Every structure is written in C-alpha cells, then in structure tokens.
C-alpha cells in the first residue's frame, strides 16, 4: 500500500466513473465510439458558461494545422475538479484523449479520460 498503488487505484476509479459519464452524452451529434488522442498546442482556454472549452492546434496526417475545440462542463463543475481559468495557457503542449467527437467531421470533441499538459497528467 504505497502512494503509487493508491494513485493507480485513484486513476482507475476516475476512469471507471468518467467514461460512462461522458458516454452518456452520446446524442446524435457525437460519436462516443471515437476517442482519439490528439496532441497539439493551446491557443486559448475559455472559462465561461454554459461550458468551458479549449482551443488548440494540432497537425493532421498531412501536416496541415487543424484547429480543435474541446468542451468541458460548466465552471462550477470544473472548479469541483480543481480547474481554474488558468488550467490551460496559450503555448501549453497538450495531449487530449477525447470522450467523443462530432459526427459531422468537425474537429470538435469533449474531454475524455486523460489530459496531459506539458507532460504532466491533469488530476481530477
């Protein structure tokens, strides 16, 4: 029972709870079976109602820049997870595992199970 073990248990619990919660949002516009992990650089983080969202630039397989938008929940919900308006800053390198993506092919997603900012996993 060391800290590493407890961390693993905690992460497992987070994944167990957060995946079904986000899968719940699988309405017609979102494909919850698609959970790509995208790497990119933050351009802006919007802390606002009804939902906070992140803008970041990533490159597709052809090297073209794609402007991604990723949605979180509302500020009170995100505060509860320890987020602030400064959780993401322009220039941060991020690796986002989506919980779902827009069916219409737009680079729009919802946060999923894992967020890495400048090499550090964001804890919820």
């Amino acid at each position, binding site marked *: 029972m060391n800290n590493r073990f407890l961390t693993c248990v*905690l992460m497992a*619990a*987070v994944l167990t*709870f*957060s995946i*079904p*919660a*986000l*899968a*719940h*949002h*699988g*309405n*017609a*516009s*979102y494909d919850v079976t698609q959970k790509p992990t995208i790497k990119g650089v933050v351009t802006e983080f*919007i802390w*606002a*109602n*009804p*939902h906070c*969202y992140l803008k970041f630039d990533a490159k597709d397989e052809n090297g073209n820049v794609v402007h991604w*938008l990723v*949605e979180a*929940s*509302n*500020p*009170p*919900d995100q*505060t*509860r*997870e*320890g987020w602030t308006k400064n959780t993401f800053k322009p220039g941060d390198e991020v690796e986002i595992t989506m919980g779902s993506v*827009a*069916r*219409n*092919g*737009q680079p*729009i997603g*919802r946060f999923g199970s894992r967020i890495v900012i400048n090499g550090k996993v964001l*804890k*919820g």
Partner: protein
Amino acid sequence: MQKYPIAFAGALLATMLLSSGLYAQQAPQSKEVAEALAKRRWNNSPPVKAAYANRRPSRPAPKRDLSGIWDGTAEGGVEGNGPHEYPAGDNGNQISGREDESAVKRQLPFTAAGLAALKKNKPGVGVRSVDVALANDPVNTGNPQGFPRMLFYELRVFEWAQLKGQWIYLDQFMQNYRVVWADGRPLPDINEVEPRWFGYAVGKWTDDYTFEIDTVGVNEKTWLDNPGRPHTYEMKVHEVWHRLDYDTMELTVTVDDPKYYSQKWNGLEKFIVHRLPDTFDMEEFIYSGLETSDYDDLLGTKAVIGKGK
C-alpha cells in the same frame, strides 16, 4: 437579438446533457484537489459526497432557523432528467422521441388532461426528448425556469437568508431568488392576483425544526422540470424543510395539481442538503447572452449538427 434564443437553447440542452451525466455519477475527487479547494477564499466548490460520509453532526440543530449556505450537489441535486424521485430518462438517455412516458421506470399519475398537456411540451431531455431545434422549453427562449423547477433542476448551492417577516432563497443557478413570507399572512386568492414565475409563497414553523412552505399562483407557462412535466395555474406546491442537525436538512417537495395529476406526488422526498461554512463564496453560474452565443457558434447545435461550421 434573434441569436440569443438559439444560443440559449443550445446552451441549455448541452448543459442538461453534460451536467445530468456528470452529476448523476459524480467523479471522485483527488486529495490534492480537495485540499486546494478547501484553501480557497473565493469561488468555493462544495465537497463531493464522499466527504460527507460518516460525518458526525458538529452541533444540534438551532431552533427555527434555516439560515446559511447549503449544498444540494453532493446528493444529486443536479437533476437534468427531472426531479430526483421521478426522472424521465433511462440510464444514459438511450431512449428519445417517445410520445409519452410509458418507457419511464417510475411513472407520474397523469390525468388525461395532464397527458395531453405533457405531449404539447417538447423537451430536450428524457424519453420524449426531441432535437433542440424542435424543443419548446420556455427556458430556451430566456424565460425564468420558475418554481418548483428551481428545486427540480440544478439544486446545487443555495442560501436561506432571514429578513423581517420573510425568508429569502438565493439560488446559485442563474442567480435567482425567491421570497417566502413568514409574517402570518395568508396565501392570495389566485383569481385576484397575476400569475408569477415563482409564485406566491408563505411559510411557517410547524415545530422548532420544521419549516413548511405553500406556494400557489405559478405561471402555467413554466414547466415543472426539464423533461417538460406540465402544471396548471391551480397547482399547489408544499415544501417541508426539516432540520436534522446543524449540518443537515432534508427537503420534501409535493406537487398537488388534480387537473393534471390524479394524486399528489413528491418530486423530492427527504432529499438531504448539507450545510456549508458561512465563509463559502458562491461561484457565479449565469448563462449570459454573450457567452452562450459564442458557445453556440463554436460548439453548440449549429456546429455539431449537419455540415457544421
């Protein structure tokens, strides 16, 4: 100006969908996050449910006192699919577009008139949910959610404040408030007064720890909850706020509307709310027209339905 209702509709639907899922099954919170939040002086966040487990009462309940800041979030107060006792969604909203609520596990006692009224309301959530473009939720077009919907949806953080002869309910969501007169005045004759979005309310102590409120005169343009349960202007709502100890109170909310429901029903039944510290600073939770418009353009209905941007 025409942009606002569209933005609001998309924003509301998205919030209902996201928040109903997130808080129906609240994610655990790491020790680091809990500790960091506990140190905050501004924009405080209520503890998660686990933090309340096995907590012993700090002191006995004060007599005839509701005052303070309270948390409904931990016990599931974010009721995106309808009130706690009668949700209109299945597990995960896999069913939508139904004409009635026969697919709902615990059904409300609709009369024929109530069922007909229900069918006119097109919600964005629950088994009868329709695409947001077809929804006619009055909140989508900027109307107040009204009462008792303020207790049947987004029952997060709220404050009871006492003034001379009245109790004021201050709601985090949309920064609404509600006045409950406790100076002995009777309820008005609803045929003599104009309808109100939050109705006319009077309350009294029925014992030292139980405050009961009766509300009438609610504008029938309001829905009772997100899934579009209707009510008439003749509806009466009875609340029982029962203080268990200093830290805990339970709330029961009864809807009495015989034209639409053959029996009274409790949307909340002994629902637990927890006392928060007096220093708790309530985070703002308002959908402004500016922000929701931006959201809708980038991430809302227009962005994710059809071809997109």
